[in-house]
């Protein structure tokens, strides 16, 4: 049973990572001005929200599986407090990223935070959370040796940085046009 929980921990972790990256890209490309506000169908934004929520659910499953795996050494304290696990840093990145995801999701749902500036700052911490997720995946190291992981890692890093770039440039453009 414990062995299955171990593999479930890995697979839910991988799927949660894919979902977080997908939600991030959806957020960047389809909610940003690059695609034009008018052409943005409501279901694209809806899917962004859905992917974000799903990512959090799979993150929860990942933690639950790790907790149920008796050989992982992950208990309630290790889940809640960064740095308490035997593998202090690798697990700490995951804990911090989870807190980030929780805050990002629950400031947007069920009710969006009123102050737009605050909401935006909080929402952009999802970029940092994604970076932490990759650090967590890399340092725990179960799938680092896998070719698929490396290809996925590079692709995700490239797409995410492209997305961040697009966002930064559109903000910069907006400012210059206003001036």
């Amino acid at each position, binding site marked *: 049973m414990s062995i299955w929980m171990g593999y479930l921990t*890995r697979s839910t972790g991988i*799927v949660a990572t*894919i979902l977080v990256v997908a939600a991030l890209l959806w957020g960047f490309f389809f909610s940003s001005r690059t695609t034009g506000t008018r052409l943005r169908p409501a*279901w694209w934004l809806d899917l962004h929200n859905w992917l974000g929520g799903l990512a959090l659910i799979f993150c929860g499953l990942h933690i639950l599986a790790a907790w149920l795996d008796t050989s992982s050494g992950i208990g309630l304290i290790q889940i809640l407090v960064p740095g308490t696990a*035997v*593998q202090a840093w690798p697990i700490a990145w995951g804990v911090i990223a989870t807190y980030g995801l929780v805050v990002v999701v629950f400031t947007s749902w069920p009710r969006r935070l009123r102050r737009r500036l605050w909401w935006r700052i909080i929402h952009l911490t999802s970029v940092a959370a994604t970076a932490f997720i990759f650090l967590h995946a890399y340092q*725990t*190291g179960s799938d680092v040796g896998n070719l698929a992981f490396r290809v996925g890692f590079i692709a995700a890093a490239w797409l995410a940085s492209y997305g961040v770039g697009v966002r930064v440039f559109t903000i910069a453009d907006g400012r210059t046009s206003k001036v």
Partner: protein
Amino acid sequence: MTTQTSGSDPLDSEIAARLERLAARKAAPALNRGGGSTVSMAYEPKDVSASGSNGVRNGRRHAAKRARIAALAASLLTTGSLTFGLFAADGQSNRVLVGAAGVVVVPSASPPVTALPPVSASPPVTAAAPTVVDGDAFRNPYGDVQVEATFSPDGALLDVSMLRFPNSNRESVQINQYATPRLNSEALSAQSAQVDTISGATYTSNDYERSLQSAIDLARADGITQLA
């Protein structure tokens, strides 16, 4: 009169053209729906005229729903296939020792000697430096792990580390710091920390491989006894 009519003519035609485009736009989803499903033609005009805007919204809701279901299904499917896939991939070589067979004793003070001949006759009790004993690599769901135990010159177990491949994360446990503050009344000096065996509930072979007992067995397999 003529100027009025001539002035209104191009405007009218433009408005008519816009209306036509609008009608075409509105009709498009309705037509799609008619073509895609088995809704009879009789209902179609009613859809467009009476509840046209509702029909469009319904179409959008379906798209969102489909996207949601697709995302959920893809996630669950990937999780399932990954769990079994990872298990199957590991299962091929499960329990097969990944590293070199046998225990190799490497005095940690000396320059990195790759493999001294396995010591079997006498324990290195006379050596001044601590002795590091590497166990065989074994596989667990998270990857390949190797236990490494450090013994003091007099044979006392000083430290047990777990090396994790491929990035060699080291989970080290200072076993000299035995008791936590909560068990302070039972605190032991480092001297008395020498043990021959461990009593505790070990449930699975996997748990065993991560236990202190497995490190002690490693040392015993090499002829080292705790009491030198």
